[in-house]
């Protein structure tokens, strides 16, 4: 099977053009505008998902797809490249967006009319672009696209909490962006190129100190985006402030871009550092998991708990990356596969949980676990209760959801590697996650009902119920599918992991050249 590389542009171009189109043809703050934007977004998200699936099918048979933008050979132009990991992430992103759309329609207030859908598409474009980028500076640009759109989405509505959270978010992320830009500069300054495959070829030529500095700066920049210890401050400061739809969207997409960037750079550019810094990465992973879950225990509103849980869960994926630093190739590949498998599980479940958590908050218009406005929802909203239970305990690793198999794979990998400490930490964090999820569940759904359900709650109408709950149920079905039918999913993860770890293959696919010729003779006619 061959596939035209031009398909690679689609996940970036489709959302961008649709967003631009929907901005151009609608007027601000009109209800009809929202409707039209919503329809356009639905088309774009559907197309995007189809393309992503196409790429998934293509890459999971072991292929890479490379597009040299504008036809300029690497490393001179910009390379866009998809391998298994990229395609998996593109597909999941597409799925999340597809699930988010009906949920947004069902739950959004009039923020829907403030260009929510175009912004969502811009964010999608940024995320997709970051996954596809094969060029360090291009990666920076797409990081900025997704950051900028997330800034705007975060503050959409302009409430006090949003502004305050937003300022932290903006500042801390800009600091990370500055470090990233400096790292890109260092890469070009020291190695004379920005193409990642080309950088991977040339990196041994730089002195150790420069390599360390480059690896370190990228580690810090990406860790900050991925919300790793101790750089995650921006996330718990801001994620609970916007509308629940936005929180859910962010929770599914944003940190994963940082994780992806870490996976990619450390396997491609710094394979030696992956081994050398294994204990550092595992320490970071462990501390991220622990501080995240402790934050989740300390937090007192539903979405705060869930935001901290994102951090804790991200730690598990970094654990997979750390385990990929094993000197044994099979074990390394297994660790990476476990990390990717966890990533798949997490994107599905975390989004579902944030969605159902948001829907729960909207029922009583409060997420507070102390004021006890939540409570007793089990009797009043049984469907919501079942969905919440499955989502919450999927996050905590309850079999037969994907949570169990993904945690199991990481545990097996860690024990096989002899990394007993991180294995123990991951189990401890799993147990604490159970505590925090049981706490949320009992506060939200057990106990006596003290408050009336909020009159405009999304679940009060039949259409609202369908729009809100169906996408969550679909995501959870996927999670159960992954859990019950894990063999193919893990095999795909393994394929992706092998591709990610195969630097030579990546470099060959991009084929950067060192030769620079003056093309005056033949082309200038």
């Amino acid at each position, binding site marked *: 099977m061959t596939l035209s590389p031009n398909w690679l542009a689609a996940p970036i171009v489709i959302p961008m053009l649709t967003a631009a189109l929907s901005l151009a043809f609608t007027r601000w703050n009109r209800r009809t505008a929202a409707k039209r934007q919503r329809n356009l977004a639905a088309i774009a998200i559907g197309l995007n998902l189809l393309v992503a699936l196409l790429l998934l099918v293509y890459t999971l048979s072991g292929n890479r797809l490379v597009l040299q933008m504008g036809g300029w050979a690497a490393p001179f132009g910009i390379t866009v490249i998809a391998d298994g990991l990229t395609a998996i992430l593109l597909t999941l992103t597409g799925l999340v967006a597809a699930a988010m759309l009906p949920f947004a329609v069902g739950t959004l207030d009039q923020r829907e009319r403030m260009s929510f859908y175009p912004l969502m598409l811009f964010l999608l474009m940024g995320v997709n672009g970051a996954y596809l980028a094969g060029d360090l500076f291009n990666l920076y640009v797409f990081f900025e696209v997704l950051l900028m759109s997330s800034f705007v989405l975060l503050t959409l509505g302009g409430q*006090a*909490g949003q502004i305050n959270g937003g300022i932290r978010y*903006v500042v801390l992320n800009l600091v990370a962006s500055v470090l990233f830009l400096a790292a890109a*500069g260092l890469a070009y300054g020291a190695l004379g190129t920005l193409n990642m495959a080309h950088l991977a070829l040339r990196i041994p030529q730089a002195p150790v100190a420069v390599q360390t500095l480059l690896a370190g700066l990228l580690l810090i920049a990406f860790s900050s985006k991925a919300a790793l210890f101790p750089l995650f401050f921006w996330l718990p400061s801001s994620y609970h402030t916007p509308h629940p739809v936005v929180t859910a969207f962010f929770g599914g997409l944003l940190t994963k871009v940082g994780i992806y960037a870490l996976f990619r750079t450390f396997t491609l550019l710094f394979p030696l550092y992956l081994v050398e810094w294994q204990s550092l990465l595992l320490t970071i992973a462990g501390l991220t998991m622990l501080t995240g879950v402790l934050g989740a225990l300390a937090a007192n509103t539903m979405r705060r708990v869930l935001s901290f849980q994102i951090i804790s869960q991200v730690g598990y994926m970094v654990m997979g990356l750390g385990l990929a630093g094993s000197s044994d190739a099979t074990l390394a590949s297994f660790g990476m596969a476990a990390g990717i498998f966890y990533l798949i599980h997490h994107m599905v479940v975390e989004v579902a949980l944030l969605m159902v958590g948001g829907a729960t908050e909207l029922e009583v218009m409060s997420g507070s676990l102390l004021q006890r406005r939540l409570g007793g929802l089990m009797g009043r909203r049984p469907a919501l209760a079942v969905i919440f239970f499955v989502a919450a305990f999927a996050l905590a690793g309850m079999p037969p959801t994907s949570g169990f198999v993904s945690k199991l794979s990481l545990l097996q990998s860690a024990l096989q590697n002899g990394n007993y400490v991180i294995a123990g930490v991951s189990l401890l964090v799993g147990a604490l996650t159970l505590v925090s999820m049981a706490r949320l569940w009992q506060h939200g759904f057990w106990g006596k009902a003290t408050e*009336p359900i909020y009159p405009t709650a999304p679940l009060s109408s039949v259409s609202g119920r369908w729009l809100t709950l169906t996408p969550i149920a679909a995501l959870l079905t996927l999670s159960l599918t992954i859990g019950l039918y894990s063999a193919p999913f893990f095999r795909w993860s393994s394929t992706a992991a092998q591709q990610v770890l195969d630097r030579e293959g990546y470099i060959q696919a991009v084929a950067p050249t060192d030769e620079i010729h003056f093309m005056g003779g033949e082309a200038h006619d």
Partner: protein
Amino acid sequence: MNILMMALVVGVLFATGTYLILRRRPIRLILGLGLLSHGVNLLLFSLGGAERGLPPIVVDKAAFTGDISGFVDPLPQALILTAIVIGFGVTAFTVVLVNRRHALAEEAVADVPVVASRKVVDPFAPMEHYSGGLDADPDDYEWLEYSVSDELSRARQRIHEHAAADAQLDEPTGSGKANNMNEESD
């Protein structure tokens, strides 16, 4: 030595930018971010070697034979251009953000007797309600609480009006969501 000079300027820009960010004053924050991005732009610019030379422009295209000696490195310039524009976008948005913050602070001051302009709110303490201006603490998160208090009290009233309050818990009370949101709330 040129590089040393550039490095010094970049260092100073980084240091002053950071200092301003750490000042916790919103407008200085923007200025600090501005200095920081100036710094990183200059960093990128010095990659070209920071030497005088010819601008990378071929004046006579027809006569160009591949002689590029004397041209300075064009790639960092292109990168910086991109970075400058992106930086401007971010700065402009941050300006609006801080402006919105001021507007809210004014409202808050007008609404509420200033309790304390500078209290450190413990984000994990039991439900501290927002009071006294936006500089008080960055972590107020109960927009839900604010936006719903009116609606909730109305919902409660409605429920109290009906005698069988308990029976009503199961019933969806409100009409359509959109309608309700558009109602004027005193």
